[in-house]
């Protein structure tokens, strides 16, 4: 791959990169409100986004560069097992439909910016809110790191990553540049920057997929040919494990893993701070529900994209690092200029979610650690200032992670992050529908789930590593192999239920619930719900 720089592709890539950079800085002026120094403005885009902006933002957020690289890479490596991403994203939307409008309503009524804000308000427990905030930050950091890994993969294939023997500074310079630009416009424009850039990102991605899914199969002789050569490749025995490399259709044994991964990931997705940030930035309840009917377009795209993994095999792409399979496929199959467009799509696809994720993590820190524990009387202006700085720190952390550690470490932590974030589900979704759970029981369940998940994941070995080799393991009591996150989640709920009974019996003090039942169904126009632009929300962020 590192056989010189692909000049044309690089030029196209740089063109798009400069374009989105300009947009990122100009975004600060887009639908500007009277008072920009509040967290609602910087961190939630003024809570003003309509159906389409929200659609692009959520799409840009959930379907990241890493998704584009990793899902086909998983298919390329092992076949059917990697396709679980499709049922996973199918299951996400009925879930969103059911619970996110309630979160939207209660958040608007009380000025909540993060999920931890809600948990604190609902259960009157700073401890529980801290647990949710810390979990969110921990799970988000490796996710940001993976976005940088995605950019790195593209740079590598274009030949600008340098070979193994180049000086580290030259090797990492392009990544540092991309990173610096990202950090600068997130700092100045907040959530408006990724919202605007998401338009470009999605247009490019849809274009590339549409072309790839028609053009490449024609060049390779049709899907029959593609699946025939994939079948042959998967049936070869892997010398490291002594088992076949993979399968085109999952066997009996793999089905539990497939289903639990799909369900567990679907439950986890909307616990991530960045998905909540994008949701809360929407203008009304209706925007969210309407979005669940148009967001599945992305799932369709993801399915098509996954098929590229088979095409990479059929096209004879041979890479050691599976992450490079798809960029390499583009490089091999497309004319140079269009390969550049495809690389730009992946690169920009990394910038959008990285920006949203860092904003979301920063909001969590500011609201639920800084304001709750360090400086309770912080003004909205100070909150925004802290958030901006933390968003920088979070990104620097991710960058250091990527530059100093092995890439597999980032992927392992991302797997672990998924397991962790799922453990906040009982507090959040439970809290949206019922106040039956005791706040301490939820903390207990969370702690047990976190510990079980981490320990179980630590014990998973793979041919290449001793620990954190995957995210599936035998489910205790059932004996099938399943997603650790889901097992931990079930244990978490059981513990929370049992502890609630116990704590009720001993009459442990309940926290104060500041929400009322009608808050969960409030919509724009109801008294107390902040209306759309332009009134600046200064001071309302209490």
């Amino acid at each position, binding site marked *: 791959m590192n056989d010189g720089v692909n000049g044309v592709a690089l030029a196209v890539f740089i063109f798009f990169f400069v374009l989105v950079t300009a947009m990122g800085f100009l975004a600060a002026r887009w639908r500007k409100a009277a008072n920009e120094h509040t967290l609602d403005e910087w961190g939630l885009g003024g809570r003003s986004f309509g159906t389409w902006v929200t659609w692009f933002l959520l799409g840009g957020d959930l379907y990241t560069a890493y998704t584009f690289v990793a899902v086909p890479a998983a298919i390329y490596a092992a076949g*059917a097992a990697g*396709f679980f991403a*499709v*049922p996973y*994203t*199918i*299951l996400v*939307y*009925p879930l969103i*439909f*059911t619970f996110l409008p*309630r979160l939207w309503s209660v958040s608007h009524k009380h000025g909540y910016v993060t999920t931890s804000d809600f948990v604190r308000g609902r259960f009157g427990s700073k401890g529980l809110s801290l647990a949710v905030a810390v979990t969110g930050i921990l799970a988000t950091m490796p996710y940001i790191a993976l976005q940088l890994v995605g950019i790195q993969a593209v740079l590598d294939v274009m030949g600008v990553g340098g070979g193994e023997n180049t000086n580290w500074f030259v090797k990492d310079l392009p990544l540092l540049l991309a990173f610096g630009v990202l950090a600068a416009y997130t700092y100045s424009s907040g959530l408006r920057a990724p919202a605007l850039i998401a338009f470009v990102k999605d247009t490019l991605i849809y274009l590339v997929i549409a072309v790839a899914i028609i053009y490449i199969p024609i060049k390779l002789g*049709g*899907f*029959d*040919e*593609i*699946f025939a050569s994939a079948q042959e490749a998967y049936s070869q025995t892997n010398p490291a494990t002594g088992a076949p490399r993979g399968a*085109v*259709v*999952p*066997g*009996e044994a793999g*089905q*539990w893993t*497939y*289903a639990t991964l*799909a*369900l567990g990931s679907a439950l986890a997705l909307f616990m991530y701070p960045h998905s909540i940030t994008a949701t809360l930035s929407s203008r009304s309840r209706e925007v969210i*529900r*309407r979005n*669940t*009917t148009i967001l*599945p377009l992305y*799932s*369709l795209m993801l*399915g*098509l994209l*996954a*098929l590229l993994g088979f095409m990479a095999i059929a096209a004879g792409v041979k890479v050691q690092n599976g992450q490079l399979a798809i960029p390499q496929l583009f490089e091999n199959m497309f004319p140079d200029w269009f390969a550049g467009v495809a690389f730009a799509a992946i690169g920009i696809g990394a910038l959008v979610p990285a920006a949203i994720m860092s904003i979301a993590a920063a909001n969590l820190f500011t609201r639920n650690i800084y304001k709750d524990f360090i400086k309770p009387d912080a003004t909205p202006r100070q909150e925004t200032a802290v958030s901006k700085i933390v968003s920088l720190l979070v990104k620097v952390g991710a960058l250091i992670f990527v530059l100093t550690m092995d890439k597999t470490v980032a992927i392992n932590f991302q797997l672990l992050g998924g397991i962790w974030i799922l453990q906040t589900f009982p507090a959040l979704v439970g809290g949206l*529908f019922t106040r039956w759970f005791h706040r301490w029981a939820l903390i207990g369940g969370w702690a047990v789930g976190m510990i079980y998940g981490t320990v179980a994941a630590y014990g998973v070995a793979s041919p290449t590593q001793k620990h954190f080799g995957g995210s599936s393991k035998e489910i205790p009591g059932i004996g099938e192999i399943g997603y650790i996150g889901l097992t931990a989640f079930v244990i978490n709920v059981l513990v929370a239920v049992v502890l609630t009974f116990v704590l009720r019996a001993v009459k442990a003090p309940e926290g104060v619930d500041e929400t009322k*039942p*009608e808050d*969960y*169904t409030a*919509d724009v*126009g109801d008294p107390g719900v902040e209306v759309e632009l332009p009134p600046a929300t200064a001071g309302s962020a209490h």
Partner: protein
Amino acid sequence: MSQTPQTTPGPVVTPVRVVIGVCLLAPFVAMLWVGSYAKTDPTFIGIPFFYWYQMLWVLISTTLTMTAYKLWQRDQRARSAAKGGAEQ
């Protein structure tokens, strides 16, 4: 779907709400029952059943969610009308 607005007249579980629930639940049954679709045949333009069936379900579940959305809107409107025209 236990979203009952305050002071709502009428029962919480209505036929319409059951239909909404079924629409939202169906994708879970279909997708988690992996054994029902883990096979190669019939293929579609060379793509094994396993893959095209799941992608088809993207469209099916979209239709179901859309139906649920429309029904829910109608349900809410009917209820707020019954409540005395309060805007929902």
